[in-house]
């Protein structure tokens, strides 16, 4: 084996070579078959006697006989009375619309079948999201069919009509008698809603408006207000940046507009012989984030020292820029990272970018100062189109609470915000809302805040309503309904119009906004302008002249009072997961079951702890601990996480919802309660006490479910070595064969005549479908996992079945770790002496789907020919033939086959599965079979899409164009890491990538000829020792 090849491992247990790990790895199944449990649940029991047997036998015979007597059921075919023109049974209709929930923004295309939305895809025309969509947006289609949604307005717990609602609302507003009433919303980005809000405030002069974000950017807004005179967020241009430094900013995960940033960022990460260069990404953070795990250089700091780290970075850059330094204690991170990063940034001046996730305005002002010195404004940071997706100011919330308590504000109308759950003083909000004179909530489904309100307006789902958005100045997008409303609900715009006493419809109100845009654009035909915008979903104008916003100068006083802090104790950092985010979608089982990209845990939140810290305290995975911060105390399991700073622990927010649908009930604890309240809410808590309770629980982690047996699965190299040799790191296996003339030759696995193989050669005369995955582009975000789940009707199995290693995802993202010390890899297992503080770790993500092997080992062992090869290179899975021997899964070297253990569609044990309700079943893709219990299933390369693509080609009498057929994972990938196509077409992108020097097949020495190839990961580091 080549020495340059890194040794990676999948979990700490593997690195430590624990007994339990070796034991698990040696067994195919986690546990013995739970026959007793399954059979014992009913009257059927394993201990039944002969009489029982005869009874069951007799009943079975009788039932079978009776069942055979019945006629086939009469099915009806009920056509429309008046067939709508744009909809036809069995044909998909796509609508361009907008997803915005106060947290994520995306311009999307919604696929509807028979009038019901079933799938979301990114809108490639959007200059912001550029066709990318994250896991939450993919999963959001299910929230439309959530059975817990409000079906009508309510007064307390009683259903009422809208006219009663309007009366009661007027009565409450009258009772306020002119005293201020506050409308509390998330950051509203809709121009129409903003206009209607202004109208409503004109109608009710005592109506005020406060914006509140569950994840606050208040610190940035305040800093920018001082530095630029703009309480807004600029647009970040990652595509322009040669060197990116992130400081606790998870910009590939959840920071501001991660989908847009992922697109831009990965443009500079994709490398090919024509362009042998890539950006350098440096990340300073205290926990291991998705963004940090993609960084070339990563250093950790203690969470409470964030300001000190930024101040020292400021000084390091200022030294190079020849500017005055701040007087702060000196700090350097591992590997002289601060000095070296400053040098790298300075070298890339004008093409450098520093972003920071802190909510402290002083820290953000220092970051602004650094970016100013680096000349980022006007190049990588763009003030010509500021973002408005975060508008909430934390001090406004504090003021509002004080006013509600004092009675200065008489009432509260909450729309799209959930402060009872996600504000640190949530408990106080309960009473404030209950006791207010005006106590109204406007929500799509019950949440902690809405249930406190006396009057509840049922809000329409975004797929049921008209609307618009301007998340970035000048970048408009339209929201159009993809289905008529399911219940007696109103959209916010409709309610505001009603409030203003207007008879205008929400559609007309929207159109008048857009007619204004049309006339501003100088469009001659407003109708054509509208139709184009509606079709495209987006419309862009240049908002401000470039660099119209000037920097007002640095103020050294921001660094006053920055100290090194206490040396002992633990800091807690609160973060959002890529799956649940701020917790608004906790009732979505797809998101709950999506493994966290880093920890691979699902269905829970947990305290991530450094390896050595855990060892010192004797904490193990699953040990329950009490985390005490001030007066707040929560009890969570420990997860030992490589890459954590030794004095920092991390806990995800978004869990512990109480008023939520069935999937979110009792999942995790609410970490928002630990957020430090104040005029700038802080997700960093210093000096927390963590103590073991002696209890243990089991975490549902998917990563260790298969073992790699020490094989070389991921390959990587460094940029300098790649430039010298494009195939560096891509060591391909071969066998040596003696030739007739006595010399030796190397024989590589493959389809050549020369290959040594036991397999019969196949000719792929027509298509030969294949996929290439760029490990350099994949950020591990997991959008593909959810997208695949939606597209292919993959069931949700729940926490216990994930623990039992029975998750059903057809695509998984494997995450590999390698400890690093001083730039060198630690090769030896369990080498605690050499891992230093245990926070330096290299991470690789590798999406794994069915490899559709040309020499598929699964096919040869199936006794009933339920899995066979197609002449297009697909490894077909025939559910109806499968008898469930599971030999194929056993023989699959990639472990991508999934056995359907239970009847997920009707077994009450799996009631989180959306297909268990009439409404939830609406989301199923009618082109894909819903698999029954007892059959094997796996990735099909989205064969339904391949067939549809071929049919389109036949209709037009042409070949299939490259890129025309996209698999669900490929389509959803914001990084563009997955390329699918026809290998028989020499011009196709996938053919080119297969010939790339970085291309390799996983364990290709088996000569199974996988149809999925990966491209070696390239790291951009100065010192390439490892």
């Amino acid at each position: 084996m080549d020495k340059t090849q890194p040794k990676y491992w999948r979990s700490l247990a593997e690195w430590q070579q624990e007994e339990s790990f070796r034991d698990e790895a040696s067994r195919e199944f986690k546990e013995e078959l739970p026959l007793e449990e399954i059979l014992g649940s009913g009257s059927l029991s394993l201990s039944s006697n002969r009489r029982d047997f005869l009874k069951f036998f007799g009943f079975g015979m009788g039932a079978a006989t009776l069942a055979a007597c019945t006629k086939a059921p009469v099915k009806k075919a009920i056509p429309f009375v008046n067939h709508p023109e744009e909809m036809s049974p069995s044909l998909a209709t796509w609508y361009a619309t907008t997803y915005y929930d106060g947290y994520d923004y995306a311009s999307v295309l919604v696929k509807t079948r028979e009038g019901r939305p079933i799938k979301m895809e990114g809108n490639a025309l959007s200059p912001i999201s550029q066709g990318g969509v994250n896991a939450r947006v993919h999963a959001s289609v299910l929230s439309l069919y959530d059975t817990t949604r409000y079906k009508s307005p309510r007064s307390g717990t009683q259903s009422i009509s809208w006219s009663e609602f309007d009366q009661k609302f007027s009565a409450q507003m009258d009772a306020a008698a002119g005293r201020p009433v506050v409308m509390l919303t998330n950051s509203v980005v809709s121009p129409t809603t903003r206009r209607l809000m202004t109208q409503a405030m004109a109608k009710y002069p005592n109506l005020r408006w406060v914006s509140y974000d569950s994840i606050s950017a208040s610190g940035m807004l305040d800093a920018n207000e001082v530095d630029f005179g703009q309480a807004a967020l600029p647009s970040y241009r990652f595509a322009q940046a040669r060197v990116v430094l992130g400081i606790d900013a998870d910009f590939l995960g959840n920071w501001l507009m991660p989908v847009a940033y992922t697109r831009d960022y990965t443009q500079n990460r994709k490398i090919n012989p024509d362009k042998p260069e890539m950006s350098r990404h440096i990340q300073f953070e205290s926990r291991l984030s998705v963004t940090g795990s993609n960084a070339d250089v990563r250093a950790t700091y203690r969470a409470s020292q964030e300001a000190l780290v930024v101040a020292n970075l400021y000084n390091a850059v200022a030294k190079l820029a020849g500017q005055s330094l701040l007087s702060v204690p000196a700090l350097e991170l591992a590997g002289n990272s601060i000095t070296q990063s400053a040098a790298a940034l300075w070298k890339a001046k004008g093409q450098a970018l520093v972003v920071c996730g802190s909510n402290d305005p002083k820290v953000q002002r220092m970051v602004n100062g650094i970016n100013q010195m680096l000349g980022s404004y006007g190049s990588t940071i763009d003030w010509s189109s500021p973002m408005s997706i975060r508008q909430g100011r934390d001090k406004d919330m504090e003021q509002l609470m004080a006013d509600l308590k004092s009675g200065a504000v008489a009432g509260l109308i909450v729309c799209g915000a959930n402060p009872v759950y996600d504000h640190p003083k949530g408990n106080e909000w309960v009473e404030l809302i209950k006791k207010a004179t005006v106590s109204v909530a406007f929500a799509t489904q019950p949440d902690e805040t809405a249930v406190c309100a006396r009057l509840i307006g049922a809000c329409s789902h975004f797929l049921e309503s008209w609307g618009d958005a301007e998340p970035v100045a000048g970048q408009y997008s339209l929201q159009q309904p993809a289905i008529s409303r399911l219940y007696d609900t109103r959209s916010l715009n409709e309610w505001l119009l009603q409030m203003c006493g207007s008879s205008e419809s929400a559609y007309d109100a929207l159109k008048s906004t857009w007619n204004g845009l049309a006339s501003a654009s100088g469009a001659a035909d407003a109708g054509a302008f509208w139709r184009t915008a509606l079709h495209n979903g987006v419309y862009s104008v240049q908002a401000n002249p470039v660099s119209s916003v000037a920097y007002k100068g640095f103020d050294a006083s921001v660094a006053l009072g920055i100290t090194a802090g206490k040396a002992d104790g633990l800091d807690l950092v609160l973060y959002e997961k890529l799956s649940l985010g701020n917790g608004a979608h906790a009732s979505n089982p797809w998101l709950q079951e999506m493994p966290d990209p880093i920890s691979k845990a699902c269905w829970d939140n947990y305290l991530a702890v450094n390896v050595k810290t855990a060892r010192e305290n004797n904490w193990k995975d699953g040990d329950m601990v009490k985390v005490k911060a001030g007066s707040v105390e929560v009890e969570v399991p420990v997860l030992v996480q490589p890459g954590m700073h030794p004095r920092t622990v991390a806990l995800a927010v978004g869990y512990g919802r109480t008023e939520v649908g069935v999937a979110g009930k009792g999942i995790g604890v609410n970490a928002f309660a630990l957020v430090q309240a104040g005029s700038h809410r802080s997700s960093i808590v210093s000096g927390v006490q963590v103590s073991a309770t002696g209890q243990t629980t089991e975490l549902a982690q998917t990563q260790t479910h298969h073992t790699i047996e020490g094989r070389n699965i991921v390959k990587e190299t460094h940029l300098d070595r790649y430039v010298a040799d494009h195939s560096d790191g891509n060591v391909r296996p071969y066998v040596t064969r003696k030739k007739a003339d006595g010399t030796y030759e190397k024989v590589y696995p493959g389809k050549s005549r020369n290959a040594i193989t036991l397999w019969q050669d196949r000719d792929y005369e027509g298509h030969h479908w294949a996929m290439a995955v760029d490990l350099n582009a994949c950020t591990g975000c997991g959008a593909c996992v959810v997208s695949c789940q939606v597209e292919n009707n993959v069931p949700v199995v729940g926490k216990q079945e994930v623990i039992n290693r029975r998750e059903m995802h057809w695509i998984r993202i494997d995450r590999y770790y390698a400890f690093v010390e001083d730039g060198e890899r630690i090769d030896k297992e369990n080498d605690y002496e050499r891992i230093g503080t245990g926070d330096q770790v290299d991470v690789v993500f590798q999406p794994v789907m069915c490899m559709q092997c040309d020499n598929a080992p699964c096919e040869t062992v199936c006794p009933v020919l339920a899995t066979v090869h197609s002449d297009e290179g697909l490894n077909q899975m025939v559910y109806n033939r499968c008898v469930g021997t599971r030999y194929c899964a056993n023989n699959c070297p990639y472990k991508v086959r999934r056995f359907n253990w239970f009847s997920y569609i009707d077994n009450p044990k799996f009631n989180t599965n959306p297909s268990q309700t009439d409404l939830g079943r609406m989301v199923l893709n009618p082109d894909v079979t819903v698999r029954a219990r007892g059959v094997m299933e796996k990735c099909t390369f989205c064969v339904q899409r391949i067939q549809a693509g071929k049919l389109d080609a036949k209709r037009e009498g042409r070949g299939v164009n490259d890129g025309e057929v996209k698999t669900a994972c490929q389509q959803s990938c914001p990084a563009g890491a997955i390329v699918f196509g026809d290998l028989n077409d020499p011009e196709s992108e996938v053919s080119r990538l297969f010939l790339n020097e970085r291309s390799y097949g996983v364990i290709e020495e088996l000569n199974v000829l996988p149809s999925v190839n990966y491209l070696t990961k390239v790291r951009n580091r100065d010192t390439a020792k490892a």
Partner: protein
Amino acid sequence: MRAIFHFQKSVVLWSGALSVGLNPLISVTALAQDAAAAPADSGFGLSQLIWILIFIAAAVAWLLVRSSRMLDEEYQERVDSGKADPEKLKDVGIKFKPRAVHVVGALLTLFLIGGIGWGIDVASHVGIQQGYQPAQPVAFSHELHAGAHQIACSYCHTGVERGKSATIPSVNICMNCHNQIKKDAPEIKKIHAAWEQNRPIEWIRIHNLPDFAYFNHYQHYKIAGIECQTCHGPIEKMPEVYQHSQLTMGWCINCHRETKVDLDNGYYQAVHGDKPAFQAALKEKGLTIANLGGLECSKCHY
């Protein structure tokens, strides 16, 4: 001698089993083969052969029973006349004497085996609704519309022009003509009522494919150019529609084996055109759907 009688017993049983039990199965197979491959008037088929075998087996059984009787009588005679020593002949003695219990047992076994055979025969037809002709809520006649008036199928079944589903016409399509024509006929009044009350007509679905089988009308009708009648039978002669074809997988596959692909479609030229095997096959006798992978599972099941 005992061996003879054991043989005799089994012959009786098995010949019976063959005649009663397997016969329906074999005849079903034979029928299916007749329909599929073998010409119906091939004269000497499998079933005739079976019948002859059964006749021979029965004759042998009868002969054996007869000779058993004779041997038995001979033995008794010898013993009675003292010519033979019963002690000496004990070991070769004939023990088996058909009694009522044997006859009943044999009959019961035959009945059981026959029943199982019949059960399999019935089971193999479960779910096949060939000939299904339910009464429809409106007595619509294809014979009149498609036959006498020569209205194109796709005028009403619009989906066939672009989608997987051919679609049952919506009421507004009926109303295209019937808001003028035969307004007062009792059946047409039902359509008017549906239109006026905005209430869809609930037709009984005749052709039911299982959900796990993908079938696309558009693909067959427009791209392959298959006539509607190929699967739906003489629809223009049906006053009341019934299911003409079996709609089983065997029936689908058979057509895919025999039907030639329209290779003029640019798709085939673009995808296969440059392949030598394709060109060779093309020259000979064209390609069937099966030749191009049309029998593969994932073409219809996914």
